[in-house]
Structure formats: structure tokens, C-alpha cells
């Protein structure tokens, strides 16, 4: 057994022990679904970041940057991370007031509608299942690299660990392990950067050498590689459209998607939500900027890593000291496992709570008792399905996840924000706008995949789906009227929780935006010094 295998095994054992211990603390449905609604800021931040930065981030997206599109990705990433604050201020705090168990549960209660709840539950299950497949693929690929075993064996190990964990642990366990894993991969990012840069000659030579590469021209340009065999994204216009489209999609996803917004349901109070919404983007930006910039410089040493998803892991295994290799692999593995557990849990919750329960229509007491055990059975089934689909589906870690994200953005953007901010929104407009968004998007995807339809660069299908959803929202709102119950519920949502205006809490919360301003200034100065100056030096050499 190699030293890497021992490190990975230790990680798995810690993970399972935490899950088992926290699982014993689960006493009721509230504990299981929303961690007793008592989570402090650090746990909410840890959970927000860990469920977002999965193997999709450390393998798929890092691979995308490594392949030649660092700055386009960072443009998109920098913009979309603002979605955390948008979500906390304009969505998260309100669903916390609604005391829902899941986001579809909130939609169903807001409009007193079973069909809205079931449809939102179906979107959750389909979208998160795609994301789960993508993350499981990434984690299994990593394990294959580290342990040197077959893909199937890796897949089974990953499946056993995350399924058994989330069946027993529930939200409390997920929150604890996600925070632990967030700390692990933040430390990993901070420690590994100088080692990665050293591989290609240290700073600033690593950046200069990468810019000078003639095989990948434009590796550090704003639009990435636009010529030669490594150009996979087309023209600068395609890049701009890609940045704008996915920035908007991910802002919506980080604001209202079930695996992000559901974290706010667990928060102790509204101040926790605001603080988490401001701290999370800073942490995410710090980790991702360091990793993406440094891994892209690996091109100067090896530009042919295949698949590109292995760029970071391959570097860790070949060039890092063993202890750091274990930390890096453990960190990425942590990120992958925490996301797998989160998605399996959320799908299980939604399947049991938002699809099966309303359809079966049991009486309240029986429904609650069934819900906990049904959730666990649902999670086991979801885990098994994910194992089968992941094995059959060829690896495409980043693009499957982006498909799932788009699904949520086009179907939930209108209902998500409309349910809080529109006085005219009715049950009918909620249902039909959601159905139109998802329906139009899926039809376009089928036409593109099977009928060879090509969309112009300036009009992506995601925008068409979103506009259709928006149009249906306006049309149906014009011909229907909200009921008195709708208006009363909306009024309740806009009534603050008791300690929201406590002066001591306010003072602490207002510190976070100030820290963010200082953080932004430091980022500008750091980028100009560590990236832009070596970049211009290299460009001068080229001319």
C-alpha cells in the first residue's frame, strides 16, 4: 500500500467517524434536514464553499484554465461569486423566515401548491443528479490516479463512503464535514501555490515562461488561447458571450440553487446569513485565484496533460513532496466527497419530502415519521443510480455540472426572486414560468444534440429559455390575481426575525462589507504585482 493510499484511507476514516458521531445526534426531522436551524457563520460559510468547490472546481474548472482559458474563467468566476451576497440579501434571509425544509418545500408553501412543489422537486432531483454524476466522476478519477486501481473500483469505494455517510449523518454531519473539508482545501491551496510555481521556474519566471509558449499563444491573455491546436473556444466574441452567459447563470445558481440557498435554511439567524453571504465570496475567490493561476503555469513544463482534469493532481503526484501530495489529493478528495454527500442528501430530501410525500398525501404525523426513513431509502437508491450512470457516462466533469447549473438558472430565476419581490406573482405564473424555462432549455438541448441545430454566438439557448420563462411570468400574472393568502404569506416573509436589529449584532455584521472593500483593493494590487507586471515583461520580450 503506497503512502498516498494510507493518507486517503485516513481521510475516509475521519469522514466516516464524523458522519457516524453526528448521526447519533439526529433526534428529529429538523435536525436531519436543516441541522436544527442553529448553524453559526463559520459552518454556513464552510458548507457554502465546500458544496460549491467540488471536483468540478479543482479538476474540471482548473483543467479549463490549464487548457488555455484562465482569464475568461476568472472573469466569469469573479463576477458570479457576487451571487453569494445577492442570494443572502434578496433570497436566503426570506426563505429562512419561511422555515421551510427544502427550497421546493418553500415554493410549495409560498404558493400553497402541490404542483409547484413537485415540479421544483423534480427540477432539483434532475439537476442535482447531473451534478452528482459529474462530481462522482471527478472523485473517482482522482482516486484512480492516487491508488492506481481501476475506475470501477475507485467508483465503488467513493460510492460506499459518501452514501453510507449521508444516510446516517443528515445535515448536521454534512455541515461539520463540509466545514472541515473547506479548511483542508483552503490550507491546501495556500501551501501548494509556491510549490506549483517552483515547477515552472518560480515567480515571476513561471508566468513569463508560460506567456512565451508559442504552442499555446495567449495563455495569459484576457480571451485565452485563440489560435493553434489548443483553441477550443472559437473567437473573442464567443469568449465574451460565454463569460456573460455563465456569469449570469452562476450568479443565479449561487443565489437560489438548492445546494447553495439550502445552507441559509440552517443558519442561526439573519445576521449569520448576511455574514456568510459576504465571507463566502472572499474565501472562494482566494482559493480559486491562487490555484488557477499557479496550475496554469504548469504549461511551461508540461502542456500535454491528458485529460486536462488531471492537471492539478498530476502535478501534485509528480512534482510535490509526498506530504504535500497527500494534502492536495486529500483536499480535492474532501471537496469531492463533501459535494457528493451534499447532492445525495439534497436529492434524497427532495425526493422524499417534495415529490413522494405530497403525492402520497399522508396525515401530518405519519408523513413526518415516513419522511426520515423514506429520505434514507431515497438516498440509498439515488447513490446506487449515480454509481451506474457515472460508470456508463464518459468523463466530462465540468460540462455536466454546467448543464445542471443552467437548468436551475433558467427554471428558477423567475420564481426564486419573483416569490419574494413580486406582489403580482400567482401560483399559475410560478408553475408555468418554471415549466417554460426548463421545457424550452431541454428542447433546445435536444435539437442541438440530435438535430444538429447551431445557435448564433450572440444568442445562446440559455437566454432564450430565460426570456421565455420571464415572458410567461408577465403574461400569466396579467390574467391572474394573487389571493389574500398569497398576500398574507408575502407580508409574513417581509417581517424580520426577532434579533435582526440588535445593535451589537448590527455592528459586527457591518464589519464584513468593510473587510470586503479592503479585500478587493488587495486583490487589485496583488494581481497587478504578481500577474500583470511579469505578463507585460514577457509581452515586451515577444516583441
Amino acid at each position, binding site marked *: 500500500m503506497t503512502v498516498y493510499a494510507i493518507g486517503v484511507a485516513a481521510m475516509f476514516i475521519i469522514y466516516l467517524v464524523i458522519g457516524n458521531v453526528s448521526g447519533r445526534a439526529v433526534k428529529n426531522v429538523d435536525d436531519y434536514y436543516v441541522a436544527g436551524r442553529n448553524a453559526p457563520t463559520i459552518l454556513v460559510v464552510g458548507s457554502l464553499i465546500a458544496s460549491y468547490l467540488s471536483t468540478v472546481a479543482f479538476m474540471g474548472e482548473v483543467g479549463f484554465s490549464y487548457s488555455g482559458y484562465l482569464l475568461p474563467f476568472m472573469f466569469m468566476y469573479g463576477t458570479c461569486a457576487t451571487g453569494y451576497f445577492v442570494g443572502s*440579501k434578496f433570497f436566503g434571509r426570506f426563505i429562512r423566515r419561511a422555515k421551510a425544509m427544502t427550497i421546493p418545500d418553500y415554493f410549495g408553501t409560498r404558493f400553497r401548491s402541490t404542483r409547484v412543489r413537485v415540479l421544483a422537486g423534480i427540477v432539483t432531483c434532475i439537476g442535482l443528479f447531473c451534478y452528482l454524476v459529474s462530481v462522482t466522476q471527478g472523485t473517482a478519477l482522482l482516486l484512480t490516479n492516487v491508488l492506481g486501481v481501476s475506475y470501477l473500483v475507485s467508483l465503488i469505494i467513493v460510492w460506499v463512503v459518501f452514501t453510507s455517510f449521508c444516510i446516517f449523518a443528515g445535515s448536521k454531519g454534512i455541515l461539520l464535514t463540509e466545514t472541515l473539508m473547506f479548511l483542508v482545501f483552503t490550507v491546501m491551496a495556500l501551501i501548494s501555490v509556491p510549490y506549483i510555481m517552483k515547477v515552472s521556474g518560480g515567480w515571476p519566471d513561471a508566468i513569463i515562461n508560460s506567456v512565451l509558449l508559442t504552442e499555446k499563444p495567449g495563455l*495569459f491573455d*484576457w480571451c485565452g488561447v485563440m489560435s493553434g491546436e489548443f483553441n477550443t473556444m472559437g473567437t473573442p466574441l464567443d469568449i465574451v458571450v460565454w463569460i456573460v452567459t455563465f456569469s449570469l447563470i452562476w450568479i443565479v445558481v449561487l443565489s437560489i440553487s438548492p445546494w447553495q440557498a439550502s445552507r441559509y435554511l440552517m443558519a442561526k439567524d439573519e445576521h449569520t446569513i448576511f455574514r456568510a453571504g*459576504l465571507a463566502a465570496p472572499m474565501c472562494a475567490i482566494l482559493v480559486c*485565484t491562487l490555484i488557477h493561476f499557479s496550475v496554469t503555469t504548469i504549461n511551461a513544463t508540461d502542456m500535454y496533460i491528458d485529460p486536462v482534469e488531471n492537471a492539478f493532481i498530476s502535478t501534485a503526484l509528480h512534482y510535490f513532496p509526498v506530504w504535500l501530495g497527500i494534502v492536495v489529493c486529500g483536499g480535492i478528495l474532501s471537496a469531492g466527497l463533501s459535494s457528493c454527500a451534499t447532492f445525495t442528501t439534497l436529492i434524497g430530501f427532495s425526493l422524499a419530502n417534495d415529490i413522494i410525500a405530497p403525492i402520497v398525501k399522508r396525515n401530518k404525523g405519519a408523513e413526518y415519521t415516513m419522511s426520515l426513513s423514506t429520505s434514507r431509502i431515497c438516498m440509498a437508491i439515488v447513490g446506487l443510480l449515480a454509481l451506474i450512470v457515472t460508470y456508463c457516462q464518459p468523463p466530462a466533469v465540468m460540462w455536466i455540472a454546467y448543464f445542471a447549473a443552467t437548468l436551475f438558472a433558467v427554471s428558477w430565476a423567475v420564481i426564486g426572486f419573483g416569490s419574494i419581490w413580486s406582489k403580482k406573482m400567482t401560483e399559475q405564473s410560478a408553475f408555468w414560468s418554471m415549466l417554460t424555462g426548463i421545457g424550452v432549455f431541454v428542447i433546445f438541448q435536444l435539437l442541438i444534440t440530435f438535430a444538429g441545430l447551431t445557435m448564433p454566438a450572440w444568442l445562446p439557448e440559455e437566454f432564450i429559455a430565460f426570456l421565455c420563462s420571464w415572458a410567461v411570468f408577465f403574461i400569466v400574472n396579467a390574467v391572474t390575481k394573487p389571493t389574500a393568502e398569497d398576500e398574507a404569506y408575502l407580508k409574513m416573509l417581509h417581517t424580520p426575525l426577532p434579533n435582526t436589529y440588535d445593535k451589537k449584532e448590527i455592528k459586527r455584521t457591518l464589519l464584513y462589507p468593510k473587510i470586503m*472593500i479592503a479585500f*478587493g483593493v488587495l486583490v*487589485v494590487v*496583488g494581481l497587478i504585482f504578481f500577474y*500583470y507586471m511579469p505578463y507585460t515583461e514577457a509581452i515586451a520580450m515577444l516583441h
Partner: protein
Amino acid sequence: MNGELFFCLYYGGIYVLLGIIAYVLLNREFKKHVRDDDAAQDVVEEPAAPQDPTE
């Protein structure tokens, strides 16, 4: 200005802007409600006017 310099300014600048917007939004909301709460408390705590014994 070239695209790369714009990136440096944009990538950090967006967080300076977000910080300012967040501060303004939160501060405005907090101030408004604290003022309302204080006003409501003053109304409760205001002593009742002494009754005229001749009435």
C-alpha cells in the same frame, strides 16, 4: 487600457463595489428599523400625563 489590465482592475474592483453596495444596503435597512424600534419604545415608555384632579 488593455484587456489584461482591465481584468486586474475588474476582478478586485467588483468586490470593492460589492462591499460598498452591501454596506449601503445593510446600513440603510438597519438604521431605518433601529429608528423605528427606538420610536416605538419611546411611545411605550412615555409616562402618562398627570390627570387634572379638578376633572
